[in-house]
């Protein structure tokens, strides 16, 4: 069972950190909430709607968006087009043609610092730019909730700091709620208001960052001497 009896809630406007060793089921949890997989049991409530049975695109239109751990750009589309797709289809918009969507996409690209790369194909971008593109694409759907999946993996320290600052600015400017999956403890502890820890598919701790950092069970799991 990849995810077993996990229950938690996330409040509007907060940053929730999701931690856990590799294989704990974090990405699977995100897949379940965004709709790639359907749950076997339990239900998901989002802003008053029950979204357990909805297909992924309807969940997106309600306001859930995500980035991918290994960036999945649209390889044959330029950065501008990729974000424009999200801008068009993220929400049901009136009066928006492809040109208008492209204009809006430039706004998100500039926010992520990718405006100069807007005509570069998805397959030609570097890793740091790809992560920026993932964020721009997710933001273009004007979500209320974003799942950010390991944004700092593979980046050198200066790029990593820039990425974290980008997320902070996104929160300020667009007012999104962020659920942040991360392995780099220092950044997560500073940025998150609450943290949930998963281990082998089960939730083993939830609370404020300092409590989690001092929880003996969590420490034991990360050092590897306990089994589910």
């Amino acid at each position: 069972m990849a995810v077993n009896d996990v229950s938690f809630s996330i409040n509007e406007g907060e940053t929730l950190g999701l931690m856990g060793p590799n294989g704990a089921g974090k990405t699977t949890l995100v897949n379940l909430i965004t709709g790639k997989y359907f749950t076997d049991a339990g239900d998901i409530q989002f802003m008053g709607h029950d979204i357990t049975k909805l297909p992924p695109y309807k969940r997106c239109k309600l306001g859930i968006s995500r980035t991918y751990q290994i960036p999945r750009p649209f390889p044959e589309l330029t950065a501008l087009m990729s974000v424009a797709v999200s801008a068009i289809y993220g929400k049901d918009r009136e009066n928006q043609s492809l040109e208008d969507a492209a204009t809006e996409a430039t706004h998100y690209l500039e926010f992520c610092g990718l405006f100069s790369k807007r005509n570069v194909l998805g397959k030609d971008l570097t890793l740091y730019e790809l992560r920026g593109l993932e964020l721009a694409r997710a933001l273009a759907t004007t979500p209320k909730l974003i799942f950010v999946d390991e944004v700092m993996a593979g980046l050198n320290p200066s790029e990593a700091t820039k990425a974290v600052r980008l997320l902070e600015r996104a929160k300020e400017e667009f007012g999104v709620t962020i659920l942040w999956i991360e392995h780099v403890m220092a950044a997560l502890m500073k940025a998150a208001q609450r943290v949930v820890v998963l281990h082998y598919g089960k939730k083993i701790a939830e609370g404020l960052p300092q409590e989690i950092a001092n929880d003996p069970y969590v420490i034991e799991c990360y050092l590897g001497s306990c089994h589910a």
Partner: protein
Amino acid sequence: MELEVKREKLVLRIGKGKYEWHIEPRYWRNPFIYVGILIVLPIIAYFVYPTLLPTIINANILVAIAIPLGWMTVGTGRMNFGPQFYIGAGGYAAALCSIHLGWPPIVTLPVTVVTCLIFGLLMSPLSIIAGGLYYTLLTLLFPLVFLEITFIFTDIFKGDTGLFGVSPLISGGSFGTNQLMVCLLSLFIMLIYMFIVDKIMRSKFSASMAAINDDEEVAEAMGVNVKKIKIISFTIPAVMIGILGWFYAHYYGTFSGITYLPLSFMLKVLMVSMIGGRVQIYGCVVGGYFIAILELALQYLVGDYSSVVFPIILLILLLSLSEGLFGLYRKRRYREYLPTLHVRR
């Protein structure tokens, strides 16, 4: 619904949707000139060299088949290897109605549209559930099975010899003027198809189709309703291709599955888009005229052997031109999203 013509833009508003297109100011890229040439061509041929008219009709129809096929390929994200199924369905529907019920072409047209709509809707779920390769295989097999059915129910479909006695498209006037009218009709159909598909390819739909081609799952996570786009992209081109079956039936006056359903015809259509450089619209025109003229030339030059030489030449063209004839001219732009097939599981 409201259409606005600004100085360099065309804006269409339907309900809550807005679609915007540029009007091309540069004269050598302005399609109206080429359309003008295409219209003038059969008129000149009528006066100078009337035997060229069937070739021009053939060329126009080949292009008109390749254009919706291009839309179907991009929209569903898979290559349909059996578009001639709809030509068969449309043609037989039109022919049967015309022969047994005596309806004129105007009346059999809606019958064809409805028939192909039904078949298209029935078969469109395949584009959703079947993976790329399975879809290719099944679409390849459908026309062959259809052909077998026409042989089995010989009393209805008249097997090998086909149905004949279908009322002609345009009557009244001499044979020559009739042919000219039919030729202009074929050109008209082709131009309408070009217009429709071009406008779709320049609008919001093309962005979603490109996204689906690249990564279906991510596209769906970004809010694209993948199923709806695939079904639309399958059914409407199917109907468009079926209308050409109607045209064939009424133009030749006979319709036999053996001419259109086996692979030889499909390969011709495929080569039209491949020679045209895999571009959906304008390249097909080049490809279609090229193939029609090639067939004509081979008839004159090698006569009997043309059925063997023709595929050989097509093969040589396929191997030597990597981007097609039209691709030699066209520079690489970013909108090249024709899907590739992989033996996925």
